[in-house]
């Protein structure tokens, strides 16, 4: 009996300990994930070689963990010291030096390593940062629309049948009573039917005309052919390169900015063929030769892949612009990505699954405003909002459960038009 209890106790405490451990590990790995995505993901994947080596099992390959810390903070110094593993890696990867991260502390690097060890398996799941909320809610909306439509039709059919039954019954009762009925009119000459039909036609036609007019100048699903077949699926999807690595402007500027050619070359100096990835196809089904597309990039960059030298004859790539807003609309990426902490996918769709990019949203004002009505601002996290004293009080007193963009004026004209 006694023994049993202690056994139980041990098991119990062990469970709690384990839970705590996993929880704390989870938290750690969570930080590690953020750090990994921020600092490492543009050049490294966990189980795939990108510009840099796959990081899975990195701790086993480096016998001294301290050297990893040093390497991350300043790889050049470690190579200089002649630490064998460092020199091997350096030579293995065409002597491309790893960016130094002097700001990362031991604990941070530990967190990243934990994430690599722990989260390797979860990485694939974490790799799709899309919060499927938008497409999901939209599909549910269209579902209910369909439902309403079917219901309407059923009700209309029932009404029609009832009307017919009614008139038949009346006819029968008239006949029974012997009253002479008017000459029956065929339904296509029935004025009521004609009127109803005309009204329906007017409403339907008007609706379509209105929709058509409203759609002028909008270009949803626009997918032009670009000078280089650049696949977001390969880069952001399969290789999990952070969006901000290339579109860094999204953090600071109104423009997310298409990366300059030198940013492409950061990685493509080393990666000169598309060999290991899955086959990629255009919309029309033809296969894309990834390696040939990389060669196109070299031509633009003025890079000679055999001598590994710039020829100095580069020219900028003339990409076809997909997302166009009218001149009277002011849109700022930094406001949404940096301050508002929005995912790129919210507006650009599942970009990590797109081959050539198409315009996912219609970029209409209604679409913007709807999102502003629903989206919550970083009200307590961002100290900027501390000036909204009343809202903070209301939140505290539970008079309000959240502050949406609309509440702080996000649907007012001059937030976007000036």
């Amino acid at each position, binding site marked *: 009996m006694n023994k049993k209890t202690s056994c139980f106790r041990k098991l119990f405490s062990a469970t709690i300990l384990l839970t705590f451990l996993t929880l704390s590990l989870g938290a750690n790995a969570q930080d590690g994930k953020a750090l990994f995505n921020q600092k490492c993901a543009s050049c490294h994947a966990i189980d795939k070689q990108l510009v840099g080596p796959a990081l899975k099992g990195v701790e086993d390959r480096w016998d001294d963990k301290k050297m990893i810390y040093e390497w991350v903070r300043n790889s050049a110094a470690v190579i200089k010291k002649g630490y064998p593993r460092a020199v091997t890696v350096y030579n293995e990867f065409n002597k491309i030096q790893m960016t130094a991260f002097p700001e990362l502390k031991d604990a941070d690097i530990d967190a990243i390593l934990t994430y690599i060890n722990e989260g390797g398996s979860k990485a694939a799941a974490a790799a799709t940062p899309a919060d499927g909320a938008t497409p999901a809610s939209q599909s549910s909306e269209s579902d209910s629309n369909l439902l309403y439509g079917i219901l309407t039709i059923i009700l209309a059919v029932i009404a029609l049948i009832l009307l017919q039954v009614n008139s038949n019954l009346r006819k029968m009762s008239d006949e029974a009573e012997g009253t002479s009925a008017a000459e029956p009119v065929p339904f296509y000459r029935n004025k009521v039917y004609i009127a109803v039909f005309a009204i329906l036609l007017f409403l339907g036609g008007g609706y379509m005309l209105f929709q058509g007019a409203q759609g002028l100048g909008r270009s949803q699903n626009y997918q032009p052919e670009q000078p280089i077949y650049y696949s977001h699926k390969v880069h952001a999807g399969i290789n999990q390169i952070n969006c901000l690595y290339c579109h860094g402007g999204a953090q600071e500027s109104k423009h997310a900015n298409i990366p300059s050619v030198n940013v492409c070359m950061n990685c493509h100096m080393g990666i000169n063929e598309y060999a290991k990835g899955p086959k990629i196809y255009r919309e029309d089904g033809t296969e894309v030769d990834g390696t040939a597309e990389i060669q196109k990039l070299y031509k633009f960059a003025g890079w000679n892949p055999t001598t590994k030298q710039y020829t100095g004859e580069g020219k900028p790539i003339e990409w076809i612009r997909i997302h166009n807003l009218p001149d009277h609309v*002011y849109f700022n990426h930094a406001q949404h990505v940096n301050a508002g902490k929005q995912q790129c996918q919210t507006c650009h769709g599942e970009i990590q699954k797109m081959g050539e990019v198409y315009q996912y949203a219609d970029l209409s004002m209604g679409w913007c405003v709807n999102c502003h009505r629903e989206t919550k601002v970083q009200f307590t996290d961002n100290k900027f909002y501390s000036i909204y004293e009343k809202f903070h009080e209301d939140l505290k007193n539970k008079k309000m459960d959240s502050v949406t963009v609309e509440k702080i004026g996000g649907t007012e004209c001059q937030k976007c038009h000036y």
Partner: protein
Amino acid sequence: MKQKKYWQSFGELKSSENYQERVQDEFNELLDATSPRRDFLKYLGFSTAAAAAAASCEMPVKKSIPYLNKPDTIIPGVANYYATTYTLDGDAVPVVAKVRDGRPIKIEGNDLSSITKGGTSARVQASVLGLYDTARLRFPLANGKEVSTFDAFDKMVAEGMSGIAGKQVVLLTETISSPTTKSVIASFLAKYPGARHIQYDALSASGLLNANQASFGKRAIPSYQFDKAKTIVGLEADFLGTWLSPVEYARQYAAGRKIDQKNPAMSKHIQFEGMLSLTGANADDRFVHRPSEAAAVALNLYAAIGGSVSAPALSDDRLKKGIKLAADALKASGSASLVVSGSNDVTVQLIVNAINQQLGAYGNTIDWGTTLNTRQGDDAAMVQLVKDMNDGAVGALLIHGVNPVYDYFDAKKFESGLAKVAVSVSFNDREDETSVLCKFQIADHHFLESWGDAEMKSGYLSFIQPTIAPLFKTRAFQTSLLKWSGNDTSYGDYFKQYWSSKFGSQDAWDKALRDGVVETPASTSAGSYSGSAFASAASTVTAGKNSGKEIVLYSKVALGAGKEANNPWLQEMPDPITKATWDNYAVISFATAKELGIAVDDNYEVEVKKPVVKITVGKNELTLPVLVVPGMHKDVIAIAVGYGRSEKTGKAAANVGQNVFNLVSFNNTFSYSVANAAVEKTKETFKLAYTQTHNQYEGRDEVIREFALNEFKKNPTILKDKRDELVETFAKETGDYRAEGTLYPNHPYPGAKWGMSIDLNSCIGCGACTVACTSENNVAVVGKSEVLRSHEMHWLRIDRYYATYRDESGNDNLDDLNVVFMPMLCQHCDNAPCENVCPVNATNHSSEGLNQMTYNRCIGTRYCANNCPYKVRRFNWADYYGADSFPDNQRGKLDDSVMMMNEDLTRMVLNPDVTVRSRGVIEKCSFCVQRLQEGKLKAKKENRPLETGADGKWDIKTACQQACPTNAIVFGNVNDKNSPVSKIRNEEQTNRLFYSLEQLHVLPSVSYLAKIRNTDRQVGIVEEEHAAEAEHAEHKEEKKEAAAH
């Protein structure tokens, strides 16, 4: 009892029905269509068809072209700021250029400069447009033909120079204050023995320089310190507008006139002048005299402050009283006095030096320790040069930054001399009057494309760094000089070498370039005064004339000597006093108008056709339209220089006004006034575009408030009482004036609430804010023909009020004149009358207190403009900036100068964050909403609360606030109790605070601080109390009536 009245035009002064009718038509709408309804239907049909056709076209394919190799300091979409220096005509103002995606688009003052403290002027603000001037010279020319390479050009010049054997080589420039340029010039002159460098200022300060040479042994200009002066006497010196260093002086002047509510005190400013200048308009007391009396006035003043001299008697009693008043004030202030004269006459300047010496101003308000380097021109040397040229003694003449064929008094003689010079080279930026007569033309860069430096005051350096690669094939003038003196270094390298060796370390040099300014102040010095020259000068002074007309040549705040005449922003900026645009004219007095038989009646201002007069001075004759302005000496005619440029100087400059530099005379120094002018009226008329009568307040005169200092001290709460009275009338029960008196719900302002405070005591009316606003907000230039129709687009205008007394018999005393300036912009009313009347809700209220204008919603009914009591809404009558989809659809309908603003080159100046408005929409001040949004985002990104001025930290400044040289405008978050705007309203300036037309209960977001004048005269509206009482009674009456019902 005398009544005082504020008025903007003679028509308003008399305020007849006829006049009211004429001004009520705000936009001067003239419908000349014979069958407008049919036309309307036709247009409707056509535009529908056109829209359908346009819509069925395919969407244009746009490209996004990123950098090949992006510089890491540039993020497309984020502006970079570079410290540099505005330089023109010798003037130098430290500035910061805003560069967006590679294009400089806005100029701000450099806060780090202790001279300007971030202040600017209208010309500085407009200089960014000069960079994109379509009339700039695009490649080097030799004998009028393009030269393909600089090397070929250099070779041609070298050949020319080798053939001038023994003749003089002369470098003729504007005043040069740049140490490196001076060193380059020295090495150039050394290469050609006997070569000379002559500095020539079209608006010269030679008189002052020569007088200082005689009095202090230094041909220099000391530092004036207007902020330290308790009494300032200006003798024909427009130091707030155009004299020497106006940005610096305006800041100092305003600093001495900021009112501390607890202990109200300010400097006293008395002005003596012939015409009404911007500075005179700001004076506490002002007296007029003839220009020929200038020396006599100065000498009388010297005698009155105790100088032992017998001064010639003056005839005008009011002037005599004025001199006594000034003398008493000066004596009372002692060494805290400052007397300045804008005269270019050595005699006058010698007397002024004697006055300042007598008062003990040297070493106190005038500092010889630091001297001003922006005017060094020597008139006599210039005259000698022209003589040498005509004698054939000059072999080579290199001209930089000056245009004598246009602005030299004897231009014909210069021209004939120039023809005799074998090698003439012009470095000027365009084919101006002088350049076209030169054999070689090789334009210098614009200052925004240049390296360089300026030492505007000794020990105060300001650097110039390029903000954009040269747009055209231009070359630094110094590089050319270096090249021609056998040195192949480019000036950029020369400059960097020169300074980095001076600064020692690279870090120090980098910091200097980044800051833009390096200052090493010297200790204050009184200089060593010698009165010997004064005595002989004083003996030559005569009483001046007392009959006949005299002419004053002045320069306008906007245009100066005329170098920037092709800048449409400056041409369209209304003159601070006359409010006229796009022309020069003869400004005459009321009395002269009467003599000439020009009726100044109700229609005088509404009628744009002005009588033309013929003015004869010796052999010179010219015809000019006239403008009647109060406050002129009765026999003085004032004419602005800087107009009448040649065809090749640009579309905005050509055929605008007339050149009057030929009226300048030379008598040891250039003289800018003329005695013995004859004037007669001609039968012709000329249309003058001036904004004086646009935007009237429909007879409401509670727009401005002004008090005398003494009166304000006696009764400091007079404005507060008025406000209390309003509360008493409208919100007796709740005491909440804001909530009561309207049916509409109050707007909540949960976060920021924007507000602006404008100190009328600091505002000098210089117009820097107007141009800054134009530049920041893509405000369109409309051209003269459209200004004539009241279609000017300025979001911020400066209303100029005259205030005069009317005696019991109804006569207005125009001599006893006050002028008040009031910047007027959208007041962003919390209870806005414009919002309720818009049928499409294109103008509405934001949760931050902005009265928002949404252009893409506006259908152009103009109901809002109709209902705006401040008349600040402007309507786009045409496609002024080329915003329409059909390019060039306005050519021929609008002026050439407007079409020039539509060219691709000029449009580079547009701010990409502000919509370019198309035809048919209303626009108005937005409180620089793009800056508000940017500032808020900056705070959000840095995860901190917004800074709106508390502890001197600013995330947001409006363009007008930032441009203002006197800090008259303060903007910020009213909900933040620590922001300056809240402090001004609630703590610091509660007594001077007022809202314009507050009794209308529109609840403006712009508050004003009343103007205070340090004078013993009666100031402000005296009849007001009666009016208020009457109004009060009326209300009571109404209430009674309502109760009876």
